[in-house]
C-alpha cells in the first residue's frame, strides 16, 4: 500500500483551515450544502484510510497471513505503513466508531425530545409565545415544527422586526437546517479534524436563514439591525457613553471580524452586498475532496494488489 493512504487523513486539516473563509464568502445555501457534503466525504475517506491501514497491519499478523496464505516477507517489504501506524489506525478507528455512536445517540434523543415537545404544544399555531422576562427565540423541529418566542421579545420589537425574526426562524424549519448541522457534526465525530467545518455549517445555516428573512422582508438592513437589537438586549451595557460609538459607526465598516463571534459576522454580512456564487472557491473545494477520495481509492487498490502479490509469491 502506498503512502497515499495518509493523504485522506491530512486533507481534513486543509478543509478545516478553509471552512471559515468559505463560509464567509459563499452564498449561504450553497455553502451549507457544500460544507456538509465536504464533511461527509472527508469523514468517509479518512475512515476508509484508517480501515485500510488497520487491514494492512492485520494482514501482517502471522495468524492472518497463514489463514489467507500470504507471504509475510513480501507484505513487509511492500507495505510502507509501519506496524505501529497500523495499530494507531486501529485505535483511531475504534475511537471514531465510539464517538459516532455517542453523537448519534445524543442527537437522536434531542430530536425525539424536540418532536415530543413540539407535538405537546397547542395545535394549530406555528408560533408559540412563552411568557416571562427572558429574551428568547428559537425554532423547534417537529411535526409541525414550532417557533418559540418570548412575549417580552415580541413586545420589544416593532412589526417589521417581528416579521424579520419570524421569517428567520421559519427558514430554519422550512429548510430543515438541523439535519445539515446534525450530519456535519456526525462526520466531525468520526474525524475531529473536521470540527471547524461542522462549526462553519452551524454558521452558514444561520446565514441561510438571515438571507431568507432578508428576501422575505425585502430589507437586509432590517434583518441586520433586528439581529443586533435582539443580541444587545441580553448583552451587558457598555461602560462608556455613546459619543465615541457614533464616531466609530460613522467611520464605516473598517471593523475587524477576524476573531469575531457569529452574531457580528452575520450582521456585517447583511450590511455588505448580497453574496455571489464563487466558482473558483467551489473548484478548490472540489479538488480537495477529489484528492482525498482518489488517494483513498488508490491506497485501497494498492493494498489489494499487494495482498494478491503476496499470495502468488508464496
Amino acid at each position, binding site marked *: 500500500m502506498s503512502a497515499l493512504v495518509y493523504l485522506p487523513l491530512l486533507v481534513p486539516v486543509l478543509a478545516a483551515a478553509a471552512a471559515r473563509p468559505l463560509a464567509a464568502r459563499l452564498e449561504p445555501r450553497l455553502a451549507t450544502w457544500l460544507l456538509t457534503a465536504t464533511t461527509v466525504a472527508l469523514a468517509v475517506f479518512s475512515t476508509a484510510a484508517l480501515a485500510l491501514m488497520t487491514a494492512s497491519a492485520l494482514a501482517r499478523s502471522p495468524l492472518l497471513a497463514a489463514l489467507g496464505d500470504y507471504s509475510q516477507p513480501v507484505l513487509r517489504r511492500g507495505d510502507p505503513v509501519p506496524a505501529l501506524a497500523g495499530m494507531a489506525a486501529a485505535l483511531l478507528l475504534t475511537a471514531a466508531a465510539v464517538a459516532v455512536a455517542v*453523537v448519534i445517540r*445524543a*442527537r437522536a*434523543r*434531542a430530536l425525539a*425530545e*424536540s418532536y415530543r*415537545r413540539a407535538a405537546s*404544544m*397547542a395545535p394549530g399555531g406555528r408560533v*408559540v409565545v*412563552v*411568557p*416571562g*422576562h*427572558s429574551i*428568547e*427565540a*428559537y*425554532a*423547534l423541529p417537529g411535526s409541525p415544527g414550532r417557533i*418559540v418566542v418570548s412575549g417580552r421579545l415580541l413586545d420589544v*420589537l*416593532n412589526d417589521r*422586526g417581528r416579521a424579520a425574526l419570524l421569517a*428567520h*426562524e421559519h427558514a430554519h424549519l422550512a429548510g430543515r*437546517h*438541523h439535519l445539515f*448541522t*446534525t450530519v456535519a*457534526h456526525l462526520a466531525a465525530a468520526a474525524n475531529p479534524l473536521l470540527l471547524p467545518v461542522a462549526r462553519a455549517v452551524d454558521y452558514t445555516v*444561520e446565514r441561510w*436563514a438571515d438571507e431568507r428573512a432578508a428576501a422575505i422582508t425585502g430589507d437586509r438592513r432590517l434583518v*441586520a*439591525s433586528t*439581529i*443586533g*437589537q*435582539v*443580541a*444587545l438586549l*441580553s*448583552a*451587558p451595557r*457598555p461602560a462608556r457613553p455613546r459619543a465615541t*460609538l*457614533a464616531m*466609530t*459607526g*460613522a467611520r464605516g*465598516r473598517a*471593523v475587524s471580524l477576524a476573531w*469575531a*463571534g457569529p*452574531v*457580528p459576522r452575520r*450582521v*456585517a454580512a447583511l*450590511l455588505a452586498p448580497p453574496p455571489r456564487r464563487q466558482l473558483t472557491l467551489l473548484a478548490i473545494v472540489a479538488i480537495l475532496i477529489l484528492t482525498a477520495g482518489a488517494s483513498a481509492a488508490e491506497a485501497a487498490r494498492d493494498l489489494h494488489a499487494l495482498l494478491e502479490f503476496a499470495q502468488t509469491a508464496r
Partner: protein
Amino acid sequence: MPDEEPARDAGPGTPRRPPGALEAEVMDVLRAAGAPLSPGQVRERLAARQLEELSYSTVVTIVSRLHAKGLLERERTGRAFAYRPVDDASLAASQMRQALQAGTDHGAVLSRFVSGLSGRDARLLRQLLGEDEDQPG
C-alpha cells in the same frame, strides 16, 4: 425552640420549609382557584389550608419569583397584580429550552435567533450598527 433559626416570615413554632415547597403550595392554590388571585387572596387561602401564616411581602416575593420563572401570568387589577398559572402549552415551551439545554446536544436541535455575545462581540456589533443604535427599538 432554641435550635430553630429565626424565620421572620414563618409563624412562631412552624419549622422553616424549603423555598421550593412554598412555591409549590402557592402554585397549587392558584391552580385550584381557577381565576386570577391577588397576593392577598393567595395568602388567605394558604392560611385557610392551615399552612403557616405567611406575611404579605413573603407571598408577593413568591408570586413574583414564579412570575419571573414564567410559571405565572399576571394582570393588573386595581392597585395590585392578580396572578394565574400559565397554561400547559406555554409552560411546556418555557421548560423546553432548559430541558434541551440540559442534554448534551441541544445545539443540533434548537436554532436560536442569536447566540450569546461576548463583551468584544457586543462592542463590535455596536460599531457595525453605529447609527441604528441611537434609535430606540
